[in-house]
């Protein structure tokens, strides 16, 4: 067909009708509405609180808290510290659970996910069973199961389960020896750091060599040797400058050693086992998404099972696994606020619980708490996005 080209000429630009202009206007209007509503809500809340004789503002953060917190793995908090300090303690405890939980859930999830595809009937069945059971029971119920059913059958402190007078397990937690550095420990530390640097160099050297000559170097065993042998020698020369402090029962509780409280253990068990069941499914679907030809090709070249998994399957599957993995990490972090259901002093428990109640400043405290969870979630997303783009297939 013949087309008259002069008709198709773009019409005269009318900026008011251009899509771009309209979109900007709409965005500005929405922005103004959102900011305006927030402003109105804040103002209204402040007026209402004032009218009802409720204090408001953020000055309370610097007031004395007057309450103690039971679990302080990082920083000090006593009744004479401020509410802000209590906030930091709660935040650190939340981050602790989230980080440990993500670590454990990832390991368990990958093992179960890979296990589910195993040729071994028993392993595959067990992993399938694990996923179906844990995924389908509400998390809170699992938390109660670990805390109120499992950890509560432990003996009282006096009748602790005792392993070699060093490890004790009772209702108040798990107590393990604490390594205490003595004079000369710095040399050991120094040699350890030196070994690690050497291992990194070895790694790059071996990689380069393999690229050039095709020869493999037993990096793993060599690294192990480089790490352990110098440390052993230096320790020996310095009369083992480290001593293990055993926990001992003094009065009501064990003193000394490292203590793992049952609240943390229950929370970690519940969060990581539950989340692992979802991660396992992500891993499985990631692996199944890989073209069968890849594995057949690897088999044809004569690669063993483990290298196939490590070098061919997992790296490619990661691209499919990472996005849903990110949302599992986010879920785990948010679910960690179930800590309030047992006595683990996380952010929600300490700050949006005790502090909120003692100050009565619900609006401010909930706003801060929500911003914290938002920030944690965004941080995890950003890290995972960065990792995702690092793992992407690169054209080379």
């Amino acid at each position: 067909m013949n087309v008259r080209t002069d008709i198709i000429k773009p019409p005269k630009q009318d900026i008011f009708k251009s899509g771009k202009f309209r979109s900007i206007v709409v965005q500005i209007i929405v922005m103004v509405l959102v900011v305006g509503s927030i402003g109105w809500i804040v103002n209204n809340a402040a007026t209402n609180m004032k009218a009802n004789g409720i204090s408001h503002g953020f000055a309370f953060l610097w007031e004395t808290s007057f309450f103690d917190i039971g679990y302080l793995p990082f920083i000090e908090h006593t009744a004479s510290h401020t509410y802000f300090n209590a906030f930091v303690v709660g935040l650190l405890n939340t981050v602790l659970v989230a980080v440990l939980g993500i670590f454990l859930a990832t390991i368990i999830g990958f093992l179960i996910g890979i296990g589910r595809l195993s040729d071994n009937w028993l392993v595959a069945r067990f992993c399938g069973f694990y996923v179906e059971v844990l995924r389908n029971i509400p998390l809170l119920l699992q938390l109660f199961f670990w805390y109120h059913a499992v950890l509560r059958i432990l003996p009282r402190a006096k009748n602790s389960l005792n392993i070699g007078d060093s490890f004790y397990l009772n209702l108040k937690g798990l107590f393990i020896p604490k390594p205490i550095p003595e004079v000369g420990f710095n040399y050991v530390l120094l040699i350890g750091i030196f070994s690690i640097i050497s291992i990194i160099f070895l790694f790059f050297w071996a990689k380069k060599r393999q690229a050039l000559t095709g020869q493999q170097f037993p990096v793993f065993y060599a690294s192990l040797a480089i790490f352990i042998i110098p440390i052993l020698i230096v320790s020996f020369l310095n009369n083992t400058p480290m001593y293990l402090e055993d926990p001992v029962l003094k009065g009501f509780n064990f003193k000394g050693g490292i203590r793992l409280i049952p609240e943390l253990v229950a929370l970690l068990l519940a969060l990581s086992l539950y989340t692992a069941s979802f991660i396992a499914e992500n891993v499985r679907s990631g692996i199944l998404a890989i073209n069968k030809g890849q594995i057949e090709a690897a088999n044809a070249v004569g690669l063993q099972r483990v290298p196939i998994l490590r070098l061919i399957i997992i790296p490619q599957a990661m691209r499919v696994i990472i996005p849903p993995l990110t949302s599992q990490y986010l879920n785990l972090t948010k679910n960690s606020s179930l800590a309030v259901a047992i006595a683990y002093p996380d952010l929600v428990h300490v700050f949006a619980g005790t502090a909120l109640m003692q100050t009565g400043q619900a609006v401010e405290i909930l706003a801060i708490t929500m911003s914290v969870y938002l920030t944690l979630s965004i941080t995890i997303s950003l890290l995972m996005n960065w990792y995702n783009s690092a793992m992407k297939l690169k054209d080379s």
Partner: protein
Amino acid sequence: MKISNVLKLFASVLMLSFGTSAIADTLSDTKDRGHVRCGVSQGLPGFSNPDENGNWVGIDVDVCRAVAAAIFGKGGDDKVEYFPVSAKERFTKLTAGEYDILSRNTTWTLSRDAKIGLTFNGVNFYDGQGFMVPKALGVTSALELDGASVCVNTGTTTELNLADFFRANGMSYEPVVFEKADEVLAAYDSGRCDVHTTDKSGLAAQRTKLAQPDEHMVLGETISKEPLGPVTREGDEPWSDIVFWTLNALITWDELGLEAGDALKTIVGDTSQTPEVKRILGVEGDQGGHLGLDKDWAYWALFEVGHYGDMYERHVGANTPLALARAGSPNAGWKNGGLIYAPPIR
């Protein structure tokens, strides 16, 4: 469960943020609604606890019933809607207007009064914080508790007194903090904590719920003052007045040594009674009118609920499972050396 509590709290905050703060008139709202809304505990025997038929009973519940009877007259004590709340959420929900009286073993303190927007309306039970331990522990004084794990309710004065007490005595402890009283008790009973601490009346009540109550004892020390009483929102004086004076009418009748309940039918017609009695019952004068209520407000409160002594003996007294003898305690009337005292109704 717990998460939904956080959500509910959040909803209360939203109400605070969106609602307009018109001049509050809780009394006429209550009359329009036809019942009083009352915040109670989630189950503390003697104070506020559902009985076997699911009806709320207790000395705190009776305060709400008396207010309802004072407002609605005959049979008014049933016109109450109860809202069981945890220690943590009780004030937020009151200030957000979910209920209008909080009668839930709540201690009167300066910061609650002045900072959180609450009004305290007298005291219906004078309490103090104590410690409960298993007898097997061999502890006889609170000063032997250095290093103990202590189970406690979150959002209470208990949590703060505990910190004060151990700090003042240079002792250390591990607080194990739960949101619900039942969880505190279960943790203590299992042995997760060595010590259970709360108001002594609460200890007496909680002890009855333990697997083996006889194997536990309450230590002698009382480490704080816990005057418990009904709470209302700041900013509605007339409503707070009703709550305050209703409670005090019950106390006054106890002071007068007169019988309440059915006996009132004869007392009200007895012209030989004192002017004070006639004034309280609304036979002479109109004290109720000053409160925005009917003349016979106190008559119905006393008729339906009984006086303070009745209320005490029925729920927490020597013949109840709590077995807290009134004589010799701060909850005796002032004429008997106690602290229970009502300003004059005139």
